[in-house]
């Protein structure tokens, strides 16, 4: 989300103005939240083009349902929940699973991205070299999260995304997805377990490759 400038109206004001028919106000809302909405949609879908479609749909729903928004509450949690549900519905309607995304391309868009947004608009926000290093950890530490994310059901993927993108506690994730907290815990555990399996597989393969190279 783009922080409003000193004189920029708050979300509550923009919502009120939007409800009064001010399209410009809604445009400001879109601009303010578009990164957050798009990020959610991108990580839920794994596809840049689809993410844009989903984000657009989420904003349209937001516009249509803005009258239901309680203006005494922050907008983003409401919009986030709406975005997740809209995206999940959109993904279900497409009857397909998210397209795989290259983790390399996400961390390093110049290294052969698949569907990661291009540099023109898809620059990761707030990514640090340290974080990238934590992911790579050298050749031996690579985890094929691409497979992990692609294999997850949309709801499970949503849990993962809300957990790691939004840093949401379990309770908030459960509230956003309308599932029990225990479900969040279980599915998050499964996802991590699956990631662990993938890691071990990859690690084992790397070790074998190293051994083979040593023998030669």
């Amino acid at each position, binding site marked *: 989300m783009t922080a409003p*400038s*000193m*004189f*920029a*109206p*708050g979300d*509550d*004001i923009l919502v*009120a103005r939007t409800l009064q*028919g*001010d*399209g*410009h106000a*809604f*445009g*400001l809302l879109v*601009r303010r939240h*578009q*990164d957050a*909405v*798009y*990020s959610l949609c991108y*990580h839920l879908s794994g596809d*840049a083009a689809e993410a*844009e479609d989903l*984000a*657009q749909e989420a*904003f*349209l729903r937001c*516009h249509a349902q803005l009258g239901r928004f309680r*203006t005494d509450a922050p907008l983003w949690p409401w919009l986030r929940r709406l975005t997740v549900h809209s995206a999940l519905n959109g993904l279900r309607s497409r009857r397909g699973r998210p397209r795989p995304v290259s*983790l390399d391309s*996400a*961390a390093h868009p110049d290294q052969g991205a698949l569907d990661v*947004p291009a540099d*023109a*608009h*898809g*620059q*990761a*926000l707030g990514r640090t070299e340290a974080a990238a290093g*934590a*992911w790579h*950890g050298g050749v031996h530490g690579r*985890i094929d*999260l691409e497979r992990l*994310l692609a294999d997850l059901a949309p709801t499970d993927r949503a849990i*993962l995304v809300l957990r*790691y*993108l939004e*840093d949401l506690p*379990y309770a908030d994730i459960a509230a956003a997805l309308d599932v029990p907290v225990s479900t969040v815990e279980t599915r*998050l*555990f499964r996802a*991590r*377990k699956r*990631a*662990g399996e993938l*890691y*071990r597989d990859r690690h084992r393969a790397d070790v074998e490759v190293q051994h083979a190279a040593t023998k030669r």
Partner: protein
Amino acid sequence: MPRRSASARDDAALAASSRRLDAGGPRTSRATDADMYQTAATSDAERIDAALRDRIQPIAAPDTLAGRVAAEVARSRGATLRRGRRTAWASRRPAWATALAAAVVVALLGGVGLAAMGGGGTIGERARGVGEWVRDVLGVGVRVGGGQDGESMYWVPGMGIVPLDPAALVSTGPVTVTVSGRNVVIEGFVSDTRGTRMAVRMVDVERPSENAADEQRSLTLYPMTGDAQFGRNDDQLSCTISTDLIRTQECTVPPFSAAQRRRGDAGFYVAPAHPIGNLGVQYPGQPFDWNPELLQANVQLAEVAEAGLPRAHRLGAAVVRGGLSLQGWAAEADGGRLAVRIDAVGVPTADYVHFTTRDHEPTRDIALVHDGRPELRPTQLFTHYDPENDGPSGMGFRLPVPFEPEPAGMVTETALPVTAVFAVPTDRDAVRATVRVGQLAWKVDEHLSPHDDPFEALDGASLVVRTAGRQIWDGAIPPWIGWNGLDYPASFPLMATLRFADASIQIDRGMLRYSTGDNGTPELGRPRSLLLNWRQASDGDRVLQSARVGLITSSLWSWPPFRRICDVIGGDLVSDGNGDRRVFVELGKERPDSVEVCFVQPVFVVRGPWTMPLSSP
């Protein structure tokens, strides 16, 4: 007890470490849970957690997203309207029914209705909402002073008064008009069989309590009855507002007759004005000629008949320049003259559009923030020929100031009707008309940078001058303005000098450091003070005349936006020459990274010609 496999143990350890990671929070867990990384499994968990966190990062939205959303929203609205128009009845309905239907939509949009007259709120609040279909020519005139010998008046057909139904007229939005240096805002207008009510206020009045009895400082509105019943202010046929009441005043005059409304001549008295010369419009840097096929003679702002005004007809095809669609309209007034109207609809790429004479004479750099309430959209204003300055007529509109610039790809869904009115003697020789759309404004902060401004702030403070339609009067502040002087939606000054009524400074308080004392109380690394500096230039330029310093302590969720509370913490600072003063600012316990210091009633005098800001600082 069966032995657990290595994989099962890994899974258990992974699960446990994952839970601990989550329990400690994703950002801090590594520091607090270092012990769990002693096993291979927890190391795996760390890698997995780090990998997931690294993989799932915020991604910037593509530039096209906002535009796509805007287009879809507009399309969905358009579809709704089209669906409403595709009825069989709609295709056969007569003109009056069309107007009525449009008026119903206006009523729905703007919350305007006959019943609204008795409701709460001002007329202006009720009478908003404009439809692009509004093309009827109805007139409104404003007369300054009393009697038939009053000062110049003007007439603005198409300013946005529409028939709500056969029995009522409403305004579609506030309009700012200028007469002899006095700006008048007609906030709302409703006329029905019970009366004609307007919410009007005068703005840009320097000394509100002075010369209240001066007739020339009053403004009289006369309903255009067609019987020349002007000049009578004691028979309840007119309404006078005076400058000592800057607040919005609602005044009522008798209702227009049904015949007037039917004929479309319901309006206010129109008097002769002054020649205006050629018409021109120029786009910044790209002057272009535009012949809207309407000007068959020199354009002169001439007397407009009081008689009924027929519906305007389109003149030629619209042209598009700078994001604006310019369309000429004309209506025959009387005596073989045309009332020419130019509508500019759209979002200009320039933030200010100016219509002026073709010869590109320097114009009065009038740039009104509509109504001083920049939250209103669309913005519409009208200025007219000023005989005192012998300047040409100009009119324009601008986007509201405090909002961010229109994002690329966004469209404004509401039409921005801009109307210029000229009476054209039709028997003159044809004159090619050009259109001048000028960018007359730029950001104020380009000129009022901290280093150039009458005051500077220390410690990395950056100056933000807010110029969005605030005005401070020289005299005492009327009590109804409010003690802080920030909340009142005053008008934008249009005087010999530009005055900024409120300004704020964002002060970087610096990094927190910890005291060497025993209690370890965090303290700021920089002094809690603000240095004000002003100077008296030899030419009288740029003077900080006075200010009181306070802190903006809270923002309210109240309307209008940008309402802030400025807690005054400093005494009056009077500029009596060169000098500076350090003002100590108590920062409270919140210890934010920065504080916003506000000035209460500062008056910065910057000699003209001046410019207006294009966008928020």
